[in-house]
């Protein structure tokens, strides 16, 4: 996140921005907590246990791993993507166009960087809480094979942010919400389905595999899975993490430019 704090001369002005979003969230948290707890539980039961029983019966799991333990780390990463997407679209465009909170904030000593950092920190908090809840639910069902899974928390957070930061930039470019439909249906949904979440990427046609390798979700899924299964290849996990960090840094650079362009000039 250090990309977003250019000088030490303006310390901690992102905090009131973070505080604002948190205050707003306090008014609607009930609905979201319910959904956040229930939705992973349902996916876990349906995909992990229901579908898993079919996979285990005919193929003996995936590469010898029971399907539940194969699929749940993937869903964990995918959930971070969903939460990041949910928090970075309508709210950002709303703060620019409809409710205009950003404009109100910029009328104070808060700058564009503080605005971005504060709001992104709030999104990071959302991704973290959703991930922690999911990990607890997963533990109840024996979805984790190893304590290494605790390291999946930071990896999942990075996966979420690798979506949140570029989507902030995308949202700041929109005039109406119709672009979100396209983003949701043509990017997020295919990623959810083809990034190795539900089946290994090796099942994809050869030409499609490199596409999966480029997407941040695949890196999050792979790192999570190797951690959750308890035999992490340190170098591979570091590689995936580095990829996610580069993705976030590049996204932050673009987001700064688009926010400046949209809000200041």
């Amino acid at each position, binding site marked *: 996140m250090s990309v977003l704090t250019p000088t030490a001369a303006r310390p901690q002005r992102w905090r009131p921005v973070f505080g604002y979003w948190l205050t707003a969230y306090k008014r*609607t948290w009930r*609905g979201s907590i319910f959904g956040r707890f229930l939705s992973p539980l349902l996916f876990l039961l349906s995909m992990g246990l229901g579908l898993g029983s079919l996979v285990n019966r*005919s193929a003996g799991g995936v590469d010898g791993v029971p399907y539940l333990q194969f699929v749940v780390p993937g869903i964990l990463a995918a959930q971070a993507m969903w939460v990041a997407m949910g928090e970075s679209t309508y709210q950002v465009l709303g703060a620019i166009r409809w409710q205009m909170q950003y404009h109100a904030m910029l009328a104070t000593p808060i700058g564009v960087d503080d605005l971005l950092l504060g709001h992104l920190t709030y999104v990071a908090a959302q991704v973290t809480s959703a991930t922690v809840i999911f990990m607890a639910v997963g533990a109840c069902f024996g979805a984790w094979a190893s304590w290494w899974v605790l390291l999946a928390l930071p990896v999942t957070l990075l996966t979420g942010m690798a979506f949140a930061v570029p989507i902030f930039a995308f949202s700041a470019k929109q005039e109406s919400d119709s672009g979100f439909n396209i983003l949701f*249906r043509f990017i997020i949904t295919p990623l959810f*389905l083809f990034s190795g979440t539900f089946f290994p990427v090796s*099942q994809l046609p050869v030409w499609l595999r490199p596409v999966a390798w480029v997407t941040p979700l695949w890196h999050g899924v792979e790192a999570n899975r190797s951690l959750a299964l308890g035999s992490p290849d340190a170098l591979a996990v570091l590689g995936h993490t580095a990829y996610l960090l580069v993705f976030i840094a590049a996204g932050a650079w673009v987001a700064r430019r688009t926010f400046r362009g949209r809000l200041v000039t």
Partner: protein
Amino acid sequence: MSTQGTLARPTAASRVARLLPVPAGAGMARILVERNVMSFRHGWIAIITGFAEPVFYLFSLGIGLGSLVRTVTTDGGTVVPYAHFVAPALLASSAMNGAVFDSTFNVFFKLKYAKLYDSVLATPLGPRDVAVGEIGWALIRGSLYAAAFLAVAVAAGTVHSWWALLAVPAATLIGFAFAAVGMFATTFMRSWVDFDYVTLAIQPMFLFSATFFPLATYPGAVQWVVQLTPLYHGVALERALMLGEVGPGLAIHVGYLVVMGLLGLVGTARRIEKLLLS
């Protein structure tokens, strides 16, 4: 969907019409449909996206997961490749999703923010026209998606029987049941936050209506609950048609969906009347 109505209805006839549950008194619903078609011309991208989603699911689940799951024994007793098993379920659930989206989010926006129905009711159109017109519009769109998806399913070789030709009207029936109840529910919504409840109803059905694995996978007591949900009947109907497992038992699925749709339609017309005309 809409009977031919005339502008000036004789009072006796209109009284009789009001006794009839649904289409009567909704003779001008097609005008609302026409309005929606016109306003939708700019939304062509939404048509493409609505079609793309089930196709992505079909290829991901059918090809990717299919190679892990291989074959499934349906509740009808035939053994089929996983893609063939899941394709009808995707058709049914996308019919549900489309209908619910149209009849909740879109209608809520028109009801609360665009105040569209206030303007509509200032014309000769009545509340039943609004109910029938909006639901009819959702069905027209849904049928287009269903036909397109069926074409993809046929091309992918997942269809076993000529009965599949009835899969499109069946998808329309599923859409009708969900759109009617969805719109009825929308008339009770106070704010966008209430839409969490819509997701809460839709998502478990999508995951647990014998969509991704057969009913026999569930424990006995749960099977009974699954069979109560409307999407289960939609999925079972589509699966029977596309795999050619047709029998008299299908009448139960059809009957369930018809009754659900009619109840929703009557309820919606009453609520619109109460909300906007009293």
